[in-house]
């Protein structure tokens, strides 16, 4: 198996791992999203931590995707290959920050349950402040979605120009990046319902899974790689 085929398979698997780990939030969200989260998180800290650790798998997965893709993408557009690497690194860092914020809620819940004579409202205000930070940096937060959409757009643009994958798939990715960004902006700054914002996530989420399967089974278009390599050698 040549190195490009191998890289394509690894990237496909990493895309599936990164997407699967997002759904690990369903393990801790029943506790973190509850109105009584301060009462619930610490007594269920093991479950919450398992969810957070499983979700954290996406940090190395996201970071490794552009590293494996870099040798292929740089032959088409070095600037965008570096840009994609930088954006994905920032995305991983944001997830890391979000995980640290969520872990701090475990300590807050513990202190709340052992508060003695301390005022309940102090803990509630601190908890609200911590939760509000997640509105920005969590996987459904605005900062994260903007960074993700820019990364997805750059990536699919390079794929579209290079013909490394069929164009219908890269056009779908470009449309998905615009859709998720639009949904997030509408939800954040207008009265648009969360349901519409969630529906606008689906195009890019499904495209990433189709793309992952395509990479695992078929890999990148070898004729596009060969023609680009020949052109680079001539230059």
């Amino acid at each position, binding site marked *: 198996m040549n190195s490009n085929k191998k890289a394509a398979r690894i990237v496909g698997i990493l895309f*599936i791992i990164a*997407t*699967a780990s*997002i*759904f690990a*939030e*369903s*393990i801790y*969200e*029943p*506790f973190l999203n*509850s109105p*009584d989260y301060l*009462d*619930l998180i610490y*007594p*269920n800290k093991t*479950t919450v931590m398992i969810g957070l650790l499983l979700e954290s798998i996406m940090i190395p997965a996201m970071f490794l995707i552009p590293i494996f893709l870099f040798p292929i993408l740089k032959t088409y557009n070095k600037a965008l290959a570096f840009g994609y690497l930088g954006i994905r690194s920032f995305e991983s860092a944001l997830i890391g920050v979000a995980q640290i914020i969520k872990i701090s809620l475990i300590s807050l819940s513990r202190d709340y349950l052992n508060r003695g004579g301390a005022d309940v409202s102090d803990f509630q205000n601190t908890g609200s402040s911590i939760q509000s930070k997640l509105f920005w940096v969590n996987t459904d937060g605005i900062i994260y979605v903007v960074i993700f959409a820019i990364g997805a757009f750059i990536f699919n643009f390079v794929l579209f120009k290079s013909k490394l994958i*069929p164009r*219908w798939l890269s056009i779908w990715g470009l449309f998905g990046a615009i859709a998720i960004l639009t949904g997030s902006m509408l939800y954040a700054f207008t009265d648009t319902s969360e349901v519409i914002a969630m529906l606008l996530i*689906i195009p890019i*989420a*499904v*495209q990433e*899974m*189709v*793309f*992952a*399967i*395509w990479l695992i*089974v078929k890999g990148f278009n070898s004729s596009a790689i060969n023609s680009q390599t020949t052109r680079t050698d001539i230059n």
Partner: protein
Amino acid sequence: MNIEIAYIVVGTMIFVGFIVGGGIIYSGLEKIANAIKK
């Protein structure tokens, strides 16, 4: 074109599988959280 549709179907099934799996885990743990509150 049929082969492309096969990829789309498989990719969609994986995504739906994640949604359904996540939903089952969420609703199960939500019941536990509600039981603890009572």
